């Protein structure tokens, strides 16, 4: 009896140690497989996630953080309402392309052009999310697979568009024309960090307000806890679903727009898919157990892993995909601590334990 209670008290600590120990063993093994110099790899990781000359790498971490946190907010908005919108990738890509396209059209208007192109990215993302919402509500397609399968049309259609009709042939790559400088997002003074992170912060604040101070946020949260409760209360569930999905898709579209206007200044085939922004965002949202307050922290954490791994590749020739592996393993270790998502999705409500 005595020993049992002793174990009970120390169990969380032991589990944390177990997780850290396993992750370190894994990193060690992976570095060993890549024949890397450990101290060099470690130095490269730390230096390029938060250091660099004039903090250049820290700023690149910040700009990644903007994208990852943005996608995390997009995933969180939907998950919180019990809607498994894992089609963030498609919404992101569609938003990015729409923004690049509009940006070329309205490039003469300067600042207003930036706003117009971001709005068009938003609308495109929201439309893409609403399609999956429509399929779910009126066709009975499960949102999980419906939203996911819509990723592929988004990816292939934009790939077609930048390969054929809208291709900048002289650049030699499948990409649109470079946007004129007056529709680029301005940089912070004396840095290479664009204002995208401010826009994401604005989105973050707006989402906090929607979550805690509006009727829609309250309804959507209740729908995540218990759909039947919301339904029996006579609330318009369909409207709430559409609104939540549109919000989620719009945020994904904004993230795509920021990547286009702030970082790449054009839309290149696969530029938003390859770095797994959407999936990393979903993982980040799950890591903080769908708590919006901690999203910036999770975003910074994953962004630091990304840029750190890129630095490791530069300095110690360790492939940067180690970041992806580490992120996946981290979420595996916290998954037991999270509430069950399927309870949300199967409309049984959250269980007590």
């Amino acid at each position, binding site marked *: 009896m005595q020993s049992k209670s002793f174990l009970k008290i120390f169990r969380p600590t032991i589990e944390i140690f177990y997780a850290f120990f396993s992750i370190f063993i894994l990193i060690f093994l992976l570095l060993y497989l890549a024949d890397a110099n450990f101290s060099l790899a470690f130095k490269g990781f730390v230096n390029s996630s938060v250091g660099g000359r004039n903090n250049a790498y820290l700023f690149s971490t910040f700009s990644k953080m903007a994208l990852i946190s943005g996608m995390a907010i997009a995933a969180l908005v939907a998950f919180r309402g019990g809607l498994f919108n894992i089609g963030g990738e498609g919404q992101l890509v569609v938003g990015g392309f729409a923004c690049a396209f509009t940006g070329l059209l309205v490039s003469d208007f300067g600042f207003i052009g930036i706003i117009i192109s971001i709005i068009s990215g938003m609308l495109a993302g929201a439309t893409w999310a609403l399609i999956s919402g429509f399929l779910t509500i009126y*066709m009975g397609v499960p949102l999980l697979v419906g939203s996911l399968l819509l990723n592929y049309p988004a990816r292939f259609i934009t790939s077609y568009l930048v390969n054929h009709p809208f291709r900048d042939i002289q650049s030699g790559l499948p990409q649109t024309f470079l946007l004129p400088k007056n529709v680029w997002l301005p940089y912070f003074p004396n840095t290479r960090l664009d204002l995208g992170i401010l826009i994401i912060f604005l989105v973050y604040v707006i989402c906090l307000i929607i979550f805690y101070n509006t009727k829609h946020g309250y309804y959507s949260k209740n729908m995540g806890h218990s759909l039947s409760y919301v339904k029996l209360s006579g609330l318009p569930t369909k409207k709430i679903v559409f609104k939540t999905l549109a919000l989620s898709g719009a945020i994904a579209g904004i993230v795509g727009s920021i990547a286009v206007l702030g970082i790449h200044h054009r839309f290149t085939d696969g530029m938003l898919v390859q770095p*797994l922004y959407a999936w990393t965002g*979903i993982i980040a949202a*799950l890591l903080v157990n769908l708590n919006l307050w901690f999203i910036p922290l999770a975003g910074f954490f994953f962004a630091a892993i990304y840029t750190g791994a890129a630095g490791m590749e530069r300095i110690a020739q360790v492939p940067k995909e*180690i970041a992806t*592996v580490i992120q996946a393993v981290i979420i595996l270790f916290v*998954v037991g601590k999270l509430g069950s*998502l399927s309870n949300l999705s199967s409309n049984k409500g959250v269980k007590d334990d």
Partner: protein
Amino acid sequence: MIEIFDPEFFSSIARLTTPILLAALGGSICHRAGIFNIGLEGFILLGAFMAVLGSFFANNAFLGALSAIFGGLFLSIIFAEFHLRRKGDPIVISIAINILALGLSTYLLRSIFKVSGVFSHPEIKKLPQIQLPIFNNIPILDLLINNQSILFYLSIVIVFILHYFLKYHKFGLWIRVVGENPEVLRSSGVNPVKIKFLVLLLCGILCGLAGAQLSISNVGLFVENMSAGRGWIAVVAVLLCGGRPIPLFFLIVLFGLVDSLSLRIQGLGLPQQITELLPYIVCLVVLIIVSYKKLRTLSRTIY
């Protein structure tokens, strides 16, 4: 039209069907056992990588397939550890496994073989094609099912074995009971967690073989993110058929047919992106039709 339906078209159907079929069979037993495994994509990808790895170093295609099985089993054990023992949510674990497999296969590709993108080497042995003399003189069947890899015949056999097994065998009954109500099984003296673990291992083996078919039978090389959504098509097929092997087989043959059709019409001058999209569109359309019918017959809306 004649250019599309040439001999190559008919023989490619089986080649393209097999990986999706094997993975979907793995997914279907998980579905019947009540494990919502949507990580098939990752299972296939790691299987494909491990198959190339084994085939390259052991210089033997069968050892390659064996190492693909180990790749699948590795992910199954991870799934079991975090889902069965640590009670994690299967959707989250599946997403993590997909990302893990993508990261791990690319990382190992770049660190072991020192290439990025595509790894092809003459040392990678391909699984042999098997010729069945009985079909030699039957015109269409000869093209359709003769001279395929051993995994194709295996997958066809597994469809029927699995059907029989789930319907009549004691272990199959246990699997179905676990899916319906685990407590019933526990009260009859069988540990449901053990059954679920075995089911996951079986799923890992099948998905590993699916990967082997993709990499060391169809082509003999490995490409980053080689599974390219096939796992998701398998997931959709499993959901549509409710995990029943026989309807699953026909549905996946349809997907394989569209897949090979999309390869053929590329030759007609359609852009590659549009033809590659075709299987996903067909998958989505079938999903919509079936879901809509279900919605109408049940006349019950979720929202």
